[in-house]
């Protein structure tokens, strides 16, 4: 028995296309067939009008992993989602998902236009499998997240499409799923809400919730996923790291020239660490970065990364970045970024290096400033390195405590 949260074992799925017989003349033979066997499962051969939507597709996702599924239209991505969410069953092979499935798909399918937002939260929550008490406990949080406290007792038919979508997402985001399945829903609401939504997903990722994402937004796949598969015409034509798989899909591959520093939209100008030269292990330090973003086509997919590496061995022991933390870099202009790190590391000398990463190609496009820090003995260190990063972003001039908008901490 494998310990995977999601497993697809050699799944085949047959669909019909075109007109399906729907006259009563076929009722008796059809019901008879269904009663005897499993309907479509029992027939193995392709009849006319049938096609294989999936052919021999296998994959697994374990806790802490995130699988991206990419491919052209008609590749079978939606079919995979329908099988995962148990809307349809495989023609052949097995598909299991352990625990409660949180599907960020059709987030407001259950809304009734004549009911109020409040009534719809309970209705939609129950459709997603939540109980009344659970919804009631999270109700305020959901309304807060959706940002519609004044309209919660208004019938949703009077909602704008943005409010509608935000409420749907907010309910789904508070489901506490064992497995999260996402279908292109990051295109919900305005930029600020998308960032909040993305932050919520990044948070679930940090809680080791296994994730399956289907998206045409390749940069999102690169940001979120630990591995990816490329589907084409119902079969897996490539599987590997997101970067390789995306490369296989877009056809750029290794041949593309490295973007040079001058190509990056984001520059990091300075780095300040608010700590003495030697600190005990376990201390929380704050690293403050200032930089500028110029309007440039790569800007939206860049992320500021902080890497902590051991001076002795050169290995990176921890890294965090703005994309993973759900913090957006400004579209243009100066910014100040504060990152709190808890130095849960064995006593040693470490470098803290900042850099700018192109999340689509996973390339370092700008080497930022770095610093060195000497970590002394602290409380006994156990387990893996987890620095509990907290990231704050301030846009605007660098002058100290500016009054610029502060993006909420994720």
């Amino acid at each position, binding site marked *: 028995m494998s310990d995977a949260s999601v497993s697809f074992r050699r799944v085949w799925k047959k669909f019909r296309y075109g007109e399906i017989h*729907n006259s009563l003349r076929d009722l008796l033979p059809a019901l008879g067939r269904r*009663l005897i066997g499993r309907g479509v499962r029992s027939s193995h051969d392709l009849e006319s009008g049938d096609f294989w939507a999936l052919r021999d597709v296998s994959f697994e996702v374990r806790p802490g992993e995130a699988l991206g599924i990419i491919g052209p239209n008609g590749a079978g991505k939606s079919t995979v989602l329908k099988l995962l969410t148990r809307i*349809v069953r495989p023609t052949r092979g097995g598909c299991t998902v352990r625990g409660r499935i949180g*599907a960020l798909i059709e987030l407001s399918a259950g809304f009734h236009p004549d*009911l109020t937002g409040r009534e719809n939260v309970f209705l939609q929550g129950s459709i997603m499998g939540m109980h009344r008490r659970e919804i009631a406990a999270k109700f305020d949080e959901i309304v807060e997240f959706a940002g519609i406290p004044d309209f919660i007792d208004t019938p949703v038919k009077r909602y704008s499409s943005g409010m509608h979508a935000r409420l749907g997402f907010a309910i789904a985001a508070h489901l506490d799923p064992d497995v999260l399945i996402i279908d292109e829903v990051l295109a919900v609401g305005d930029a600020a809400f998308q960032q909040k939504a993305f932050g919520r997903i990044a948070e679930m990722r940090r809680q080791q919730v296994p994730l399956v994402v289907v998206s045409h937004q390749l940069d999102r796949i690169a940001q979120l996923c630990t591995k990816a598969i490329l589907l084409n015409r119902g*079969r897996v034509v490539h599987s590997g790291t997101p970067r390789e798989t995306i490369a*296989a899909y877009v056809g750029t591959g290794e041949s593309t020239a490295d973007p040079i520093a001058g190509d990056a939209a984001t520059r990091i100008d300075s780095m300040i660490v608010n700590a003495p030269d030697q600190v005990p292990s376990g201390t929380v330090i704050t690293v403050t970065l200032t930089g500028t973003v110029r309007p440039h086509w790569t800007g939206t997919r860049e992320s500021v990364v902080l890497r902590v590496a051991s001076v002795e061995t050169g290995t990176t022991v921890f890294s965090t970045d703005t994309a993973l933390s759900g913090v957006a870099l400004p579209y243009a202009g100066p910014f100040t970024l504060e990152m709190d790190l808890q130095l849960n590391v064995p006593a040693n000398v470490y470098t803290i290096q900042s850099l700018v990463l192109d999340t689509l190609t996973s390339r370092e496009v700008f080497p930022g400033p770095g610093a060195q820090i000497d970590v002394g003995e602290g409380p006994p260190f156990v387990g893996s390195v987890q620095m509990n990063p907290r990231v704050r972003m301030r846009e605007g001039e660098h002058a100290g405590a500016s009054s610029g908008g502060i993006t909420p901490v994720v």
Partner: protein
Amino acid sequence: MTPAADGRATAVDLDSRSANAQAPPSGRSPEPSYDPAVDDEPSPTYGQDLREAATELWRFREMLYQLTLRDVRIRYKQAVIGFGWALLMPALVVLSGCVVRYAMTRRSGALLDLAGIASISVKALPWSFFVGTISFATQSLTGNLQLVSKVYFPRAVLPLAATFGQAFDAAIGAIVLAFVLPFLGVHASVALLWVPVLALLLFLLTVAASLFLSCANLFFRDVKYIVQVMLTFGIFFTPVFFDPEMMGSRLARLVMLNPLSPLLEGLRLAIVDQHDLLVPLVAADGVLVWSPAYLAYATLWAIVGLAASAMIFHRSEFVFAEYI
């Protein structure tokens, strides 16, 4: 896209690009071929299927509650007459029953009396529950296309919510009826203990029909027209306006073949005639009015019908999204 299998050989064109990618668990995979000799995962037995359907339904009981609440809310939010809505349909059935009965009995001399009105009222309520439920439930799956094609939940909650919504209306009707009946000369008796039993059987039978018809209407869209016609004329083949014994011995037995008949007749006898349903009843002219076998017959319909329709429903619910 072409349906022919060989039309798909072009799928390999993407492989050449990824040929040198080599990260685990990785790489390219060979073109799969379908081998019918490979065994499927074993099909579940009937017992496993029914248990699975029941546990899933239990897991989604909150959704069933919320959907029922939705249906009731919508109906009462929109309707000007509010709770009067629950009474309108049964009241109309009673009224038309009285008109028909009056016309039938005027010639024979035995005019429609209070007991006659009471028996029509007692049977009109379950009949309008049945009709209301079936007409709502038949379209419950096709009417929630967005949900059925995009979201997982045990599909049975949709026809069941329609049934519970109508049961709510029927309960209001029953309360009103309980206040009206004493004025029609009906008094409480021990035989009233049969009412919950008969109500339960009626509920199960209605659920069975709802499941079957909603499922059938999903696959065959003309089912709803047939259902509408059957519900319109069904009242002439179900003893609502009349009592079966009025038709003579042979026809009475034929009418009682309708699985709803023993339930409606049982309700009438238990409430209006205060008759114990375990005891057979023969009219003065020798026509068999009631036999416990009728009760057994209706029970059989309810239980076997429910098991069979639940089975058909559950086995086909995983292709709903493909056919809807």
